[in-house]
């Protein structure tokens, strides 16, 4: 999987790159509008992560350019498989206008700065599933199988009834296996900005406890472990 990261802040770019490389992606980076524009022309990518606030141009124009390129490419080469790469917008601005405009232009997702790397990872996986593995929406992790189209969860071929939040939790854990996930990162992915309250961690704990119990009741070995008292680790017991 080839991913292009467009971000002008070197420290952030480095962190994203290292994190995603560990996930096994092939990463290309661009730190300016010009470089990104060049990179888009030169190669094809499966997913592009674009920061809107570039010093030498509006990130939204990159999306426009990408669409134009894609149109001419599919016309001239008439390649049946050619499709737009997945697009994720990163913006410092959480105003609705940017978000709507971005989604209107064809971006698949929108993340507001600052974000957690596991969250970016989960979102990239989700976009890739939709864009690249269009037909195959079945996610597997040990005995757990998730159909991301119908939101159906099976454990050992048995249907598991999960609430919407439990389903999102499971998806986030499955996107980030064997990785320490802090409660803050988990809460932000599942509840967004709604959960910045005093005892929200307690609330999160209740949900995780329920999910863990349902998974184990379904016959799945215990995959969810607390780690260092402050986070969770989703790993298949060896």
């Amino acid at each position: 999987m080839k991913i292009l990261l467009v971000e002008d802040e070197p420290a952030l770019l480095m962190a994203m790159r290292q994190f995603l490389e560990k996930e096994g992606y092939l990463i290309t980076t661009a730190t300016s509008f010009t470089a990104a524009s060049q990179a888009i022309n030169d190669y094809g990518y499966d997913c592009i992560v674009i920061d809107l606030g570039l010093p030498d141009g509006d990130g939204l124009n990159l999306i426009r350019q990408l669409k134009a390129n894609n149109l001419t490419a599919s016309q001239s080469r008439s390649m049946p498989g050619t499709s737009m790469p997945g697009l994720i917008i990163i913006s410092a601005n959480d105003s609705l206008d940017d978000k709507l405009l971005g989604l209107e232009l064809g971006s698949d997702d929108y993340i507001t700065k600052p974000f957690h790397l596991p969250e970016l990872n989960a979102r990239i996986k989700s976009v890739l599933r939709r864009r690249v593995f269009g037909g195959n929406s079945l996610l597997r992790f040990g005995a757990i199988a998730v159909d991301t189209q119908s939101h159906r969860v099976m454990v050992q071929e048995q249907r598991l009834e999960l609430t919407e939040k439990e389903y999102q939790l499971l998806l986030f854990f499955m996107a980030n296996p064997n990785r320490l996930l802090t409660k803050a990162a988990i809460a932000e992915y599942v509840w967004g900005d709604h959960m910045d309250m005093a005892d929200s961690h307690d609330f999160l704990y209740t949900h995780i406890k329920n999910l863990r119990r349902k998974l184990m009741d379904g016959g799945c070995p215990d995959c969810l472990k607390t780690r260092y008292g402050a986070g969770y680790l989703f790993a298949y017991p060896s």
Partner: protein
Amino acid sequence: MSLLRKTLLYLLLVAIPVAVGGGWLFHTLIHRGIRYEVDEQLSSDLAYVSNQLSSAGTLPGRERYRIGNPHVTIVPASRQVLPVFTDTLTYDLFEKELVPVRKLRATIQVDAQAYLVTVTQAVGEFEEIARLLSVSIIVVFLLLMIVLIALNGWIARQLWQPFYTLIEQLRQYRLDARTPTVFTASNIDEFSQLQVALNTMSQNLHRQYAVQKEFTDHAAHEMQTPLAVVTTQLDQLLATEPLTDEQVAYMEQAQGSIRRLVHLNRSLLLLTKLDNQQFTDQQQVNLSEIVEKQYRNLEAYAHHRQLNWISHIVPDVYQRMNPYLADVLFSNLIKNVLVHARPGTNTEVTLTASGFSTTNAGSPLPFPVEQLFGRFVKNPARPESTGLGLALVEQIAERYGQTVQYRYNAATALHTFTVLFPVN
């Protein structure tokens, strides 16, 4: 009252007394003039009679002359009297009515005999002419006024047209327009000056607005980016092994502080944008949908806090607002309920066509009520709060003509927040 009407009113206020007073003055002057001329005529008649009497010598021989002129009577008098003018009424044989006459009586001495001579002159016709003249003067004056007023109205409308155009342009003025409004030029100096001044003002305003907008946009980017760097680097640090419980606890606390900073930053930017009037986009927003969504979002958490989470939401309540701000307003108030409600109590969220209200049980405010909507006012027991939520609520509500009220019932320990929508 428009400038035009005011002008017309003043014109009329002046014109009517001038017409009436002028008519009266004119009438008096003519009246006097006529009397003076009539008196002169009478005097001259008297002199003529006196001459005739003197040359005739004796009266009886001139009997026929006297009868031939009904306006002159001559009778012998026993004593001298001074000439006197009087106004009387005399029966006119031809017109068969009493007519006003001017009479001059005087004695004339011819030799040893004195005669009392009375010369009369009918003045009814002259008075008639004087009245006619006065009335026509008034009528002509009033006609002139009407024509003047009509003309003035028409001219004023033409002259003030550029002014009305400017007003219309000002009314449609939008600070966030892509280019500054250019006001229409006029060939009238005064309006031309006004137009130039307005253009300068418009350009300055537009520039300032752009600078402010750019500043807030940049501020958002410049502050969120380092925060994003810290967040991701902490994530990376968390991915290293081995870690101790202590280290992870520190990192998690750091993440919590970053989140607080992010929220603070967003709220401050929002307040700045509100102050700068950067939310000009307005539309009819379905508040019922927004409130319902916010309410559902927090439902599970409310149940977790053992709250009896009750709502009365009238469907399809619309208000003209910016959708983003509407979202902030209602989510802040609903979150407020959730955070401050005492566990195990009832909370209520109500939306009707006339307003929105929330009720929850909780301890009294730890600070004076006047500070409730102030910036950075927070409960010391909840240091993680930004203290900006209610300030935002009030500012947004104020922007759309809504009033926010707060009540605390000490007996039931119920806090009630009410947002009243403007009546129209």
